[in-house]
């Protein structure tokens, strides 16, 4: 996969977008004008760590520690960032 995400990158949820847990759906969602995206387990775990301060590298380490049994999640995580940036759910801060 082509990937432009660097470990040193810092992201935040895009302007006018909101990320929140939805009890009724038992999942995280991203809300924006006229739309909503439901995030499946892994994607929610990643985006919930995006806070405008933590770097991608730190998020990778955190997830590897939290889910020690998951294999090769680094590529999945970077892929998710790539997707989320492509969809304009995230904006880059640095």
């Amino acid at each position: 996969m082509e990937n432009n995400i660097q470990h040193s990158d810092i992201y935040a949820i895009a302007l006018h977008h909101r990320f929140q847990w939805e009890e009724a759906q038992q999942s995280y969602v991203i809300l924006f004008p006229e739309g909503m995206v439901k995030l499946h387990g892994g994607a929610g775990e990643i985006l919930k760590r995006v806070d405008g301060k933590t770097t991608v590298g730190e998020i990778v380490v955190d997830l590897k520690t939290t889910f020690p049994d998951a294999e090769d999640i680094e590529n999945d995580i970077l892929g998710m960032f790539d997707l989320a940036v492509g969809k304009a759910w995230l904006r880059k801060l640095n």
Partner: protein
Amino acid sequence: MAQLNNGVAASVTQKQPLWLLAEVTYRCPLHCAFCYNPTDYDKHTKNELTTEQWISALRDARKMGAIQLGISGGEPLLRDDIEEIVAEAHKLGYYSNLITSGVGLTEKRIQAFKEGGLDHIQLSMHDVTEDISNFITNTRTFELKKKVAAMIKSHGYPMVLNVVIHRYNIDQVGKILEMAEALGADYVELANTQYYGWSLVNRDQLMPTREQLDRAEAATNAFRERVGNKMKVFFVVPDYFADRPKKCMNGWGEVFMIVTANGDVLPCHSARVLPGMTFPNVRENGLEWAWKESPAFTKYRGMEWMKEPCRSCDEKENDLGGCRCQSYLLSGDAEMADPVCTKSPNRHLIDEALINSQNPLVREQPIIFRTDKNSKKYVEGDKERIEQFHALP
């Protein structure tokens, strides 16, 4: 600003009313020729829900899973409690949207909305020219709308413009998009008129030609190519020119729930036109009952109700047979395949409408604007008198 919203982006397995549309009032200072509000809205202007009733409806719907909230009308700003409703919606965790013509939006109110946590404001615009804009809304509101757009922007709101498209502005689509860009719009919805309520009354006058539509789509695509991701442009295709119907409201009672000014709970904006149906009302039964059990919501949910050709159609999952209201309004049969479908025995009704709308004798008839006076005539059952305007000489 009364708009249809068929662009739901959500994937859910369990049926939940994800989208709640609060049509808080049918009063409106504008008189748009394409307004889809019921033609007899005048009878619903005197028994509006109170602030407390709205707040408890918001609370109940949120518990059922509603998350996107549209506050619409009529013109919602004619109520002075929108600030309170917005603040409560925010506390409950809604992503909320005020859908407005802009009339009545002041610095003071927008400040209060911002503090209350309103997420975005969707403003209706009509044309690049003052003449057409004022003509189609039957008001002098063009300059005011531009000021309101600037105000929305200056308060840090995403700017969402909704432009209803019809034959008077469709040739200006390229310029309308440029205007939107100049105003700093983030999202623009070019909503081709769908024919319900007042827009159905004025259908022959509003319908563009296929050539106009093709040019408008080409202009939209060219604009998208130039501007890219900076501004999202939605082009809502008019179903009359398609050969399959739209999946109306993303399915009856699937994700949309509408609470109207007087508390009626509806699965779609125009459902009250359907014969022999009683709709639940928040004053009587809770929203939970309305959504899950009321006869009105269960009647056309899923595919059980279908008859031929839909019943055995291999495309039925795509469109669920189209729109019940459109089928009823055009053919008198609510359960038949949407007349837009070329497999429907009623397709000729659409083709005839397309031909009629090109007949100069018909299309030059005067528009019936959405006014209290005209609505009262509908309430009084004075329909024939109004229909006379449209009869062929």
